[in-house]
């Protein structure tokens, strides 16, 4: 944590650390096994304001700086990744569309409920043939009187099972697409014609759910276009800004997990060093540990430096892409090599690394794969 942190934030930070240690970590495996975050935990998050870390104070959020937010996320992910994910969409992809581009009315109507955690939110961009690009989006919205009529399917939508509000991206002009033909809508749960599929079965992140969304002649009021009718066609830009913001967050999550994995490995290695095994036979494992620590050190400096730049108002598109690719790949490397230290015991779910190994794998895929990040980085380096 920065030494320049305010006393208020220091207190919050310390509360979160305490919560992780005393309340979340003890139910690390329980969340995995029962595949859900208990509601009393969500209530604790609500009381601490964690659903609204990044939402402006005027709308009931904590209005944290980027550095402060990253610092809390790192703490919150020093345990099962799904805890952070519970508040994740509200702080990031599920709310940022409104924060960035929403009308005042939309902000007043929705942000307080999001910040308080009364409503959970989701972000619906991905489709079977469309990841981070607009060209593959098939979901369409057609204007019919005072309503837009949505048709199409969205997949892998995080927190869809509990969310009340979905920032939904659809094509409004087939010809223009990314260049003015894609629009962002606010769709409330329960809107006729909008249904939510069963929970996906995933490799990890068991306590955090994704589902398919189905829109069948789903009628959404005109005023639910994010930013109002003058923002029709600007939804791809909104979506990209939303994803931009998510890159540092993914990095911070990966960092928290990496640190957790390393600390578990240290405990194990110390135990081995104290056992009857030969110390000489543990030199290789010690070098594995040294490489973990070095990468994590690098990762952390990248993240907080980028967060600082963002708080200074700099454009950090390139830095954020580098943070995402390096920190999420570091987490996978750290998890992979931790197994060399932990051996067979590392494969057991009761050793939390088994869970973390599966969880961190997602970070390299979602909200822009590593390949998308590398494309962004090289494009920035090569532009004149």
């Amino acid at each position, binding site marked *: 944590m920065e030494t320049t942190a305010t006393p208020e934030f220091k207190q919050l930070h310390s509360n979160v650390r305490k919560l992780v240690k005393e309340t979340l970590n003890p139910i690390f495996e329980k969340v995995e096994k029962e595949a859900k975050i208990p509601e009393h935990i969500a209530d604790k998050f609500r009381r601490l304001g964690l659903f609204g870390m990044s939402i402006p104070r005027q709308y009931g959020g904590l209005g944290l700086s980027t550095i402060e937010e990253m610092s809390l996320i790192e703490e919150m992910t020093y345990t099962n990744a799904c805890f952070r994910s519970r508040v994740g969409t509200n702080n990031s992809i599920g709310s940022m569309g409104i924060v960035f581009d929403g009308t005042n009315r939309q902000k007043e109507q929705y942000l307080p409920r999001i910040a308080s955690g009364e409503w959970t939110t989701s972000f619906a961009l991905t489709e079977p043939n469309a990841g981070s690009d607009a060209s593959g989006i098939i979901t369409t919205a057609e204007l019919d009187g005072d309503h837009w009529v949505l048709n199409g399917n969205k997949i892998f939508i995080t927190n869809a099972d509990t969310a009340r509000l979905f920032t939904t991206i659809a094509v409004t002009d087939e010809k223009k697409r990314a260049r003015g033909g894609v629009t962002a809508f606010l769709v409330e749960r329960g809107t006729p014609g909008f249904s939510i599929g069963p929970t996906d079965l995933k*490799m990890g992140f068991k306590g955090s759910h994704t589902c398919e969304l189905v829109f069948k002649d789903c009628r959404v009021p005109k005023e639910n276009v994010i930013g109002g009718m003058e923002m029709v066609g600007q939804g791809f830009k909104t979506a990209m800004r939303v994803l931009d913001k998510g890159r540092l967050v993914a990095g911070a999550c990966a960092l928290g997990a990496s640190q957790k994995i390393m600390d578990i490995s240290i405990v194990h290695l110390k135990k081995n060093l104290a056992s009857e095994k030969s110390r000489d*036979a543990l030199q290789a*494992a010690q070098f594995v540990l040294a490489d973990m620590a070095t990468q994590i050190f690098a990762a952390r400096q990248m993240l907080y430096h980028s967060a600082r730049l963002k708080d200074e108002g700099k454009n950090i598109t390139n830095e954020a892409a580098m943070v995402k690719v390096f920190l999420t790949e570091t987490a996978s490397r750290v998890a*992979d090599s931790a197994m060399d230290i932990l051996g067979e015991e590392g494969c057991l779910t009761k050793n939390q690394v088994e869970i973390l190994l599966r969880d961190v794998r*997602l970070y390299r895929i979602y909200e822009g794969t590593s390949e998308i990040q590398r494309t962004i980085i090289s494009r920035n380096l090569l532009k004149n």
Partner: protein
Amino acid sequence: MTFLQFDKTQKQIKKAVKDFIKGEFKKEVINDLVETYSFPEDIWRKAGEIGLIGLNFPEEYSGQGMGTFESVLVAEALCRGDSSVGACLSQAGYGAGLILRYGSEAQKVDWLPMVAEGEALSSMAFTEPGIGSDLELSTTSAVKQGDQWVINGTKSFVMNGGPLSGFYIVLCRTDPDASSTAKAFSSILVEAGHEGIGVSDVGSRLGRRLMPLSDVTFKQVKVPLGNLIGKENKGLEQVKTCLNEIRILAAAQALGIAQGAFDRSLGHVKQREQFGRKLADFQVTRQKLAEMATKIEASRLLTYQAAWQFENNQRGDEKQSAMAKLHACRTAVEVCDESIQLLGGYGYMQEYEVERYFRDAKVAEIFDGTQIVQKNIIADELV
């Protein structure tokens, strides 16, 4: 000079396995097994019926009279077909290796046909809590009392234990006063179901979830003296020879897992589009496929060479076996990881299988000796 040519029998075997997979590895069936963490009992029994288990047992014991090389081909093909079911079938007979190699005629007659025919699983109980691959730190003891061995101790990460198991081959300290650990251990056959055996599942785990994996305790378990495998106090050497072969078979499984994940990702990228083009048309996708295929090819050659060496030397070449295990398992982990990436969001979903291949690959790498352990073995031969 000739280089790696399959003979007619080997081609037939490959064909037979392929047909078997096509007929028996049904996606719905496997999905059910995966969801319920169940051993593929039906498929296993059928594999036994058509002779895919105990391929290397002599024909008089219901085997096919073949060798390590053919076992490798079968393990590779089965795990390519399905990483989890393949592992269960390939490893069903591992524990019989000691009987085959060192056992008495009576032990062979009693157990090899049972294993080969898919009537009983075989279990090895070697390692113990906290000792990893350092088997010479084992403390489970067998003491002679009259005409019986009395066994006490706890073995960990025992595969194939539980209701389907026919027997456990237990590495026991039989000479506590031995001058060197090399002469302190014996391997003893313990029939499953003996009084005093306690089997407890190790619980949820990263991969190999369909296979029984347990901690097994032995409390005053009594078996006849004749249950000793081979010579007394030669257990550690016997076990090490068998582990040498098992490393090759583990490499073969990893090879199959890698190939299976590769098949699936190649199929995916040829079909899916992004930015309006097939994924397979992007240079970066193609470069990844090329890397994956090169690693797999190298692993295949190392594995086949190790198998060939094992058949043509009495004990095999420990260095080559460890190289095969090291390289093939690393390849499997990396190829499966890259497969998940190539499939993107789909790769993270259970339905698309590669995440399961990845988990099975990682477990294959850690079990039977981590990378560090394999490198230790190789270096001991080099220096």
